[in-house]
């Protein structure tokens, strides 16, 4: 079994605000193997983006702070590294793309410049010409037509989908081992979504890049990931292979998520199912299971003790529930 590319242990990231301390990521542990695509699913505010930014060590401080935990990448703890070492890793070993392509590119530099900049930053021995060649190569790779000419264009001359491709080009230019994609297709049209996801899937397979794909859309997960983490209230409450998540979901929250997806084969007139209740309070987390207030299977124990991730079913599937499915 290959050693893990990324090992996150007991990560805690808090935000210190005027209203209180927001425990955005509250004891999260997971691993990613080389070449594996991990999906991280959850509703807005569950902590998935903050987890990703913590791995990249891009949490704005103030008000945020990684309070505890270890992030082991290739065996080394990223949280112990200096700023210089971290900036060496970002963009070359671990890359990240973000949700809104419209604002993620600097409007005053050409697209080609922004790609070449990454190359030159991380490959010191590369000449300007070589960097530019690589830039055009990357643009071709992400299927930007007429790459040589378009490299000299500015971001505002591209559509949303194309800008996201440019972002992918920037992220993959230095052949990273891990690509973190934070809701990369949420802001795009559905048809473009499919294209961009296909692109990512193809490239990651070709270059054996591990991918951490963050999304709230289970459909996206189904098509691209091998393994899935489901997050809620700053915890991972279920972790399983993609097949297991869809076929035998264990945690009631996962079950609820799957049930709330409208289905084509449902009878007309059936009401849509939703998960009742409020999103969790991250400043004053409840004692016990964070999902307890909304869980249809809740028992007394759920309010008193917080369940850890424990094996359910077969294989590696784990869920943090005392009364899983």
């Amino acid at each position: 079994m290959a050693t893990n590319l990324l090992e996150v242990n007991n990560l805690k990231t808090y935000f210190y605000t005027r209203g209180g301390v927001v425990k955005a990521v509250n004891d999260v542990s997971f691993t990613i193997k080389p070449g594996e695509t991990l999906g991280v699913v959850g509703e807005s505010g569950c902590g998935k983006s903050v987890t990703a930014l913590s791995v990249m060590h891009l949490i704005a401080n103030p008000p945020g702070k990684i309070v505890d935990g270890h992030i082991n990448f290739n065996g080394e703890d990223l949280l112990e590294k200096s700023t210089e070492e971290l900036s060496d890793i970002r963009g070359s070993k671990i890359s990240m793309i973000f949700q809104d392509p419209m604002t993620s590119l600097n409007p005053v530099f050409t697209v080609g410049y922004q790609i070449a900049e990454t190359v030159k930053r991380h490959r010191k021995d590369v000449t300007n010409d070589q960097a530019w060649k690589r830039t055009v190569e990357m643009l071709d790779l992400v299927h930007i037509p007429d790459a040589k000419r378009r490299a000299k264009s500015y971001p505002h001359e591209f559509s949303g989908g194309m800008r996201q491709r440019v972002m992918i080009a920037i992220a993959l230019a230095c052949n990273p081992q891990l690509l973190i994609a934070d809701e990369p297709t949420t802001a795009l049209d559905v048809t473009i979504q499919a294209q961009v996801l296909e692109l990512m899937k193809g490239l990651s397979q070709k270059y054996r890049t591990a991918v951490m794909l963050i999304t709230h859309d289970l459909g996206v997960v189904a098509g691209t990931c091998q393994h899935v983490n489901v997050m809620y209230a700053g915890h991972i409450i279920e972790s399983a292979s993609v097949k297991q998540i869809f076929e035998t979901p264990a945690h009631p929250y996962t079950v609820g998520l799957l049930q709330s997806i409208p289905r084509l084969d449902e009878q007309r007139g059936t009401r849509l199912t939703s998960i009742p209740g409020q999103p969790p309070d991250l400043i004053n987390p409840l004692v016990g299971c964070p999902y307890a207030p909304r869980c249809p299977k809740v028992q007394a124990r759920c309010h008193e003790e917080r369940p850890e991730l424990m094996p359910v079913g077969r294989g590696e599937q784990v869920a943090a529930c005392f009364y899983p499915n």
Partner: protein
Amino acid sequence: MIQFLLKRLVGLIFVLFCVTFITFIMGYLAPGDPIHFIMGQHFNVKLYLQLRHLYGLDLPWYQQYFNFLVHILHFDFGYSYKQQQLTVISIITTNLPVTLELGVWALLLQFLIGIPLGILCAIKANTWIDTANMGTALLVYSIPGFVLAVFVRFAIAQIDQATGAGWPPTGWGNPWQYTWPDIQAKLAPILVFALGGAAYIARLARTSMLEVLRQDYIRTARAKGLRERIVIYRHALRNALIPLVTTFGYSLGFLVTGAFFIENIFNIPGLGSITVTSVSTRDYPVIQATVILLTIAIVLGNLLSDILYMIIDPRIKAE
């Protein structure tokens, strides 16, 4: 781009028409008969009519306005009422270099002090450096320039007394010359003049920089592994400076009006003081001339900064 320029030029011409017309009408409607004034004691009907004809004052108002405009285009503002041997232009050109020197230096200093200060405060936002500087800037910017000027003059006088340094509290040295006595005389007025603008620009630069630092593309730059120095000075700065370009033109308006006060408090013989004296002596041609010239400068300044803005921001260029 050409289209835009043409539109602006048309607007500019319209504005100039209005301004010249307003200035002209003021002079025309001004109570008091200038010829009477000039003749003073030696009133003689024949001479009066001759003079009226000479000054073109017996023509209908629209013709007078037309002549007015034509003359302006030749930079001919007529003769001063007060000092009849001198043309208005000569009076203005005598005093213009002084005001120009004051204004140019102040403009330069404003930006040279303001922008770095603002950027620094943005980078160190909410630290004591930021609060201290921005607090001072707020004070300096809110207090009117001439009040600051008085305080500074007072400070100079006190320092003079205490140390016997002998810095001249008022007056201006030789225009555009920089011997030590010249610098002594000019330093205080220029600094005071620049301070208000610098404070304003610093606040603007800080806000702009903070706004830019919040943008997604800055996060992308960091995620790419770029060093913080590069992120700030290459990616953020250029975007932050764009809105500041437009202040360049507008600050001309403030400069022009501020000059009046600084010249007054520091007894500087520039365009401002000429205008003020000509008001009390009812030397209308001089007043009109300075107002028109200054307005033209302001309008051109605005146009210049609009053009600069277009050049700098690639998003606008495309339109």
